[in-house]
């Protein structure tokens, strides 16, 4: 409201100022129609506005003046000098009343007398109360200024900043005087301050967005026969003007949706045990360089199942695919085009503008829409938008010798490709990268931009675009973090789909701001796991026998398949049985240790599912997250670019599936295993052996027995003080407790000589294995 009344004050003041010339002209020749019309329009406008703002004194004055002027216009009255001065007195009074609203003072004067004067009654001299506060009128606290002028100022400041940067660079190059540098620093500080101030002029209270909401909610609730209380909070948060305009429509849409679809009719609410009046809360707050706008209601929430039914009906995905969706994923369907839970399209929300449009509008300005639905209890939508459109923190990078910028908000991590934590894996011509066990698609920026071969040592930037999943982008070099003034690029440039805007580097060269989700789309990375159905596999090779494949989801979420014949069985094991031993993951199953593949390098947690495979000689376990299905398929398998865990990719049920190569798995993972583990005997009752040595021996794959049980063992350990535990042992390793040998023939090993112990155990173990 404050915002509006300020507008009213400013507008009235502007009009009065513009009118002052007309007033003088009218006074000189009261018969002049043009001036009369002008003044009439003014009082008419003021009358309307003051009625709206509930300003009875101004309304009464302007109303009276309008009546008189209307009579003059209709020729019923003559504009004589008395009438003119009475009207002018009213204009002056309106002016002082308007000023008084702004300064918060009161004007003590009798309006009735002014109004009476209009009717030709004698204008008795007013008993003027000396009003000291009237004299020194407070200077106007705000002025109205066109956005275009602001933009010009902004451009000028940007130019200045660039010129300053240029100067700074020149000064670095040439040894300059200390005093010159001090002066330069002062100029820099001033420029920074001006830049901040100009930036702030673009900011506007978010109130301007919220003022319209009560009316919208009231009208809509009345139309639908619902009872809704609106609760607005945080109107003093400031936001870039243009940003406010971009948010206006999406916010209105969300609010209308909440009243239309979210909040139930009173009778339904009472039946559900809620109060008959629904509550809608709209609040804004600032978090870092983001503004969060929450719209929450206590209505029925989103019916995920209904959305899924609709999605299936619309052919977006199959029932099987739908069953795998989590509750959260189902709710996310409201962002799919063409899906709405409303049973019937109402005049209110069914205007073809869906949540998909809301989301794309918000994402266009670098924002996010989050949904939190509690069925039966309500829905909360959160719009996260950056503070300003114009300045964004970004990372500048080099690719093909050119600088580009990436919005900081999308960057998860930066890591060198040669780092030990990074493993590149070519898959069917494309590349995946696994970073600390997390596998994600990998593309190089040079390839995306069609540039020359990427520099050999790429730096990997992990990007998580709004609404998408993480992927890795290889760039030649990472330069710097900068705050960039970003401007929209020309349509022909935006058409490439890769860029979010342009900006200028410090040296005045244009730099393109990359759009992380555009890059992903261009690279063909499809984040939606249940992507739109790809065309059905053509029946190109009918002569081929369909093969049964086990379709499963791997730990990294990818869909994989393996020939069913290669799988012995599927087992659930506790992840506690998985250990990293001897440089790789192994799982103990019963009395055996089986190499575990499929988990990358991370130890899985919780329950673990494994495929048991056997090639006749050795066992192999392949960990995965869940079984999807068993399918018979004769789909073409595209071979992978290089041999590996994934032998190729095929289209199964309309989706790309990685085909696991059992040949490679066995060749790589399953060195022939002995049928039984070698047994190592320890002397009984030796606490050091039992507690300190035993774990080391066990970690090498030995079964450790002690004392009496040691009848049939491969290796026996003996201390230099005692006899070996079992005399039947083929080999005996003697251990001494002192570092130095006892004599020439002493072939014992010092007990803390780890290397010697390991090599002895390994050598003897091999002989028996």
């Amino acid at each position: 409201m404050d915002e509006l009344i300020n507008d009213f004050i400013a507008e009235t003041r502007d009009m009065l100022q513009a009118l002052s010339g007309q007033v003088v002209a009218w006074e000189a020749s009261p018969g002049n129609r043009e001036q009369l019309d002008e003044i009439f329009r003014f009082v008419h406008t003021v009358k309307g506005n003051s009625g709206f703002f509930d300003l009875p004194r101004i309304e009464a004055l302007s109303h009276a003046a309008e009546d008189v002027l209307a009579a003059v216009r209709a020729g019923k009255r003559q504009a004589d000098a008395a009438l003119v001065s009475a009207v002018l007195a009213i204009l002056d009074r309106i002016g002082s009343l308007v000023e008084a609203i702004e300064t918060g003072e009161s004007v003590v004067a009798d309006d009735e007398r002014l109004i009476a004067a209009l009717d030709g009654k004698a204008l008795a001299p007013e008993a003027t109360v000396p009003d000291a506060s009237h004299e020194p009128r407070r200077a106007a606290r705000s002025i109205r200024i066109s956005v275009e002028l602001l933009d010009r100022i902004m451009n000028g400041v940007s130019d200045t900043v660039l010129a300053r940067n240029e100067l700074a660079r020149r000064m670095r190059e040439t040894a300059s005087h200390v005093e010159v540098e001090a002066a330069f620093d002062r100029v820099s500080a001033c420029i920074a301050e001006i830049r901040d101030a100009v930036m702030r002029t673009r900011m506007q209270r978010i109130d301007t967005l919220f003022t319209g909401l009560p009316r919208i909610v009231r009208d809509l609730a009345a139309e639908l026969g619902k009872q809704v209380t609106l609760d607005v909070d945080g109107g003093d948060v400031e936001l870039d003007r243009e940003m406010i305009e971009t948010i206006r429509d999406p916010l209105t849409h969300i609010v209308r949706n909440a009243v239309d679809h979210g909040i139930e009719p009173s009778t339904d609410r009472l039946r559900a045990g809620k109060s008959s009046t629904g509550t809608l809360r709209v609040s804004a707050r600032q978090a870092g360089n983001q503004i969060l706008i929450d719209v929450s209601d206590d209505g029925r929430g989103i019916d995920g199942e209904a959305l899924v039914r609709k999605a299936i009906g619309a052919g977006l995905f199959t029932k099987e695919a739908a069953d795998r969706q989590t509750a959260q994923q189902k709710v996310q369907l409201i962002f799919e085009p063409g899906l709405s839970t409303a049973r019937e399209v109402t005049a209110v929300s069914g205007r073809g503008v869906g949540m998909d449009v809301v989301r794309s509008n918000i994402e266009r300005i670098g924002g996010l829409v989050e949904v939190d639905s509690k069925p039966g209890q309500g829905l909360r939508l959160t719009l996260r938008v950056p503070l300003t459109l114009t300045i964004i923190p970004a990372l500048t990078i080099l690719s093909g010798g050119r600088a580009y910028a990436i919005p900081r908000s999308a960057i998860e991590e930066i890591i060198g490709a040669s780092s030990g934590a990074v493993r590149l894996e070519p898959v069917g011509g494309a590349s995946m990268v696994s970073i600390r066990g997390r596998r994600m698609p990998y593309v190089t920026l040079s390839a995306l931009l069609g540039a020359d071969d990427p520099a050999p040592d790429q730096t990997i930037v992990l990007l998580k675009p709004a609404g998408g999943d993480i992927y890795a982008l290889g760039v030649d070099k990472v330069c710097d973090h900068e705050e960039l003034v970003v401007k929209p690029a020309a349509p022909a440039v935006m058409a490439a789909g890769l860029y979010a805007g342009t900006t200028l580097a410090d040296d005045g060269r244009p730099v393109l701001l990359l759009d992380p989700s555009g890059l992903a789309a261009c690279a063909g990375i499809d984040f939606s796991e249940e992507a739109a159905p790809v065309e059905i596999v053509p029946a190109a090779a009918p002569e081929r026998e369909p093969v049964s494949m086990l379709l499963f989801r791997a730990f990294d979420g990818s869909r994989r398949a393996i020939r069913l014949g290669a799988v012995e069985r599927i087992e659930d094991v506790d992840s506690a049985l998985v250990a990293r031993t001897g440089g790789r993951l192994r799982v103990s199953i019963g009395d055996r240790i089986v190499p575990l593949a499929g988990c990358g390098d991370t130890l899985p947690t919780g329950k673990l599912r494994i495929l048991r495979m056997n090639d006749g000689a050795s066992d192999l376990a392949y960990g995965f997250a869940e079984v999807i299905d068993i399918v018979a398929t004769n789909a073409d398998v595209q071979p992978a670019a290089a041999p590996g865990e994934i032998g190729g990719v095929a289209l199964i049920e309309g989706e790309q599936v990685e085909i696991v190569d059992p040949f490679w798995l066995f060749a790589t993972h399953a060195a022939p295993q002995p049928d039984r583990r070698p047994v190592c005997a320890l002397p009984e009752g030796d606490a050091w052996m039992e507690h300190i040595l035993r774990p080391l021996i066990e970690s090498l794959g030995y079964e450790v027995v002690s004392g009496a049980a040691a009848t049939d063992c491969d290796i026996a350990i003996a201390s230099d003080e005692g006899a070996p535990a079992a005399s039947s042992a083929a080999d005996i390793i003697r251990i001494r407790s002192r570092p130095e040998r006892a004599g020439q023939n002493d072939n014992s090993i010092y007990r803390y000589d780890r290397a010697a112990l390991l090599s002895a155990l390994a050598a003897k173990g091999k002989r028996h294995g």
Partner: protein
Amino acid sequence: MAELLLILRIAGERVAFPASEVESVIELEEITPVPRTAAHVAGLTALRSRVLTVIDCRASLGLSPSADGNEAVVVPSDGHPYALRVDGVEDVVEATAPPSALALPLGSGWARVARGTVDVEGDLLLLVDPHALVSGPALMAAA
């Protein structure tokens, strides 16, 4: 009211732009290429604090892009500033007569951008719409 015309050379031909559409004439310095855009988008260049999109007029006419030529005409179009790279800029003249409609069939590229012919000091020149050059061949075909 005599219209001012900017006479320039594009793809070897002398043509005229309505001077009212032209903001300034600049010397192009470095052009930052924009990968994966239409052929007529030569790249970006900076004019003080503004980023201009450089349009290669030859490419926009469907001809092979020009390698050289560093003169460009700055034209704001649809809220974005563009630099139209031309072979050369000659002069600003006052049109002696209003442009007349095209009476002759032109090559396809020219037909798309020409708005008529003007008589300048006895020579018949094509009056070219700079905005059509900005749009480029692809967008026009889609429209």
